């Protein structure tokens, strides 16, 4: 397995830090190595926010995102910040309601925030996105993500967030998208 450098980007309050932590802890359950970083301070309370996860079967030497090979974009601001330069991104998953993508890269658009809202859990959008990402890219088994969700959330929050995650899983399956197993 090559090293995945996953950048989850959007705005403060969307649960990106938590989603990053869940993804990282889930991958530890599969015997992978993981590191997680996130924006801190004022950013975390509104405005642009991001969370970086590095996954690898080998020891992770540099723990931050240098060049993401998988990018989640939930807001237009996040899109402007992460895709306006000559970035050589490989895979992009974006919120099709909120981001006007113009890139010719390998992109997957879904109305992520709308779906989370329909499930009555707007804050679950990052966890819903995790469902999409893990299925689409075969990063970690869904049962390990569910286990990690349980480990990182208070019991009362478990049900609404699990339903967000499962929604993300279903969408990819229903659309018949085949998993991509390695970062290029």
């Amino acid at each position, binding site marked *: 397995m090559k090293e995945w450098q996953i950048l989850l980007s959007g705005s403060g309050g969307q649960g990106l830090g938590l989603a990053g*932590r869940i993804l990282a*802890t889930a991958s*530890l359950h599969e015997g992978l190595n993981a*590191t*997680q*970083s996130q924006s*801190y*301070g004022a950013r975390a309370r509104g405005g642009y926010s991001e969370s970086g996860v590095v996954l690898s079967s080998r020891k992770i*030497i540099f*723990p931050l995102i240098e060049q993401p090979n998988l990018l989640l974009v939930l807001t237009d601001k996040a899109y402007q910040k992460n895709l306006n330069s000559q970035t050589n991104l490989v895979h992009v998953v974006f919120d099709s309601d909120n981001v006007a993508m113009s890139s010719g890269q390998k992109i997957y658009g879904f109305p992520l925030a709308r779906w989370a809202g329909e499930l009555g859990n707007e804050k679950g959008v990052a966890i819903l996105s995790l469902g999409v990402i893990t299925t689409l890219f075969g990063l970690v088994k869904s049962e390990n993500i569910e286990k990690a969700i349980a480990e990182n959330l208070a019991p009362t929050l478990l049900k609404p967030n699990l339903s967000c995650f499962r929604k993300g899983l279903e969408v990819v399956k229903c659309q018949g998208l085949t998993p991509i197993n390695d970062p290029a």
Partner: protein
Amino acid sequence: MLCTVVCQMSRSDPKLALSQEVIVCPARVFLLELIPLDAKNVASAATIAPKGLSPETSRVTLARWHLKNANNVTCVSIVAPTLHWRCVTMTRSRFLQGNEACALGGIAAGALFFAGYPISPATEIAELCSNLLPPKGGIYIQMEDELASLAAVVGASLSGMKAFTATSGPGFSLMQENIGFAIMSEVPCVIVNVQRFGLGTGIATQPGQSDVMAARWGTHGDHSIIALVPASVQECFDLTIEAFNLAERFRSPVVVLIDAIIAHLRETVRIPEQVNKIERIRPSGPIEGFQPYAPEENLVPVLPNYGDEYILRVTGLVHDQYGYSSANPDVGGQLVGRLIDKIELYSHELPEPEYTGPEDPDVVVISYGISARSALSAAQRGGRQGLSIGVLKLKTIWPFPEQAVTRTCARASLVVVVEMNKGQVLREVKAAGITRAIGLNRTDIRVIMPGEIISFVKERCSCAGS
């Protein structure tokens, strides 16, 4: 992960030293037999051991390497050469933030007292201590400011508790007066400084590595100080424990300099059930005529705690061996000299820098904290591009490990010091005699990325590959 590591060392028979490493974990049992030092083993030890280390130390490093690379077992035993036996039971592997690991390290080392004034990016240390210490019978106090925080820590330590505080640059400035007091009055304590960007109040929460000189010379007067620099979340745990041990060993404050990136990074940390702890030595002998500041052979005095039957006078003034203040020039000169010598003459006991790379690299990169992680990545990637880069990662930054630096850099054509400041460690490298050293510096809250180091080296090294 549950596994037990047993290391056997024998000083009486060097051939047997570290002859067996037994690792027991639920699924399997490993027995790593270290073969006698034949040419092949020496060669493989040399590739992973810092240059110039004795074969014995290389063997220890080799054993650690074996442990790290054994499938499913990633624990590392720290084997002190003075120990005959050491048993480490690994019970837990946790995914932690650097700050959390630092707080847990302090508590594992036996700290039961924390006084502080929360400040980002160090806040989580205070937060965690406020949750964990009271149930253990310990004390957490949120003080009115950082001056008071360190004053409370000094008081707690004088009364016999292992105590620490955590802050960031602005608070670290406020603590300088009491750091000097703690050095002068020989009070063991740990000060964690999670460095943020800039001088003044800088940019809150954003990273920097620019408090290196503040740690060394922040307090006035001639003195020595110990400062450690973790480069991973695991090292936040390990080096905080080490800091407490060194504080007790040297009876001196010890600074842990973390950067905001490592402090907020989450990585897997292996937490042993038992850690190697140095406990405070208490005086014995007659109470009458007791001289608390009369040093032992290693220049460190054995002080009583407040409340013991011995009388302890504590002052920031120059004092004689009874603790009475003195204006005698000989007393002043000897005291300041001893406070420096008790650390500087024993600096070989402090954590050594770690060298990673080829035996005779064209380029040596010296770094610490998050910048060292970039350097290690750059060296690995550069190696695939034909560059010969070795990395010397510092663990102790004060006293500066001059000997290891000069030894490692001796034959390298290019020496680069990578740090997120204007060249604070670069000055020390030059002062150590490596005057050709150059700096790759950044002071704009952005981490120095591996790619930047590779480009920097390629531009400046005639020996650089394609």
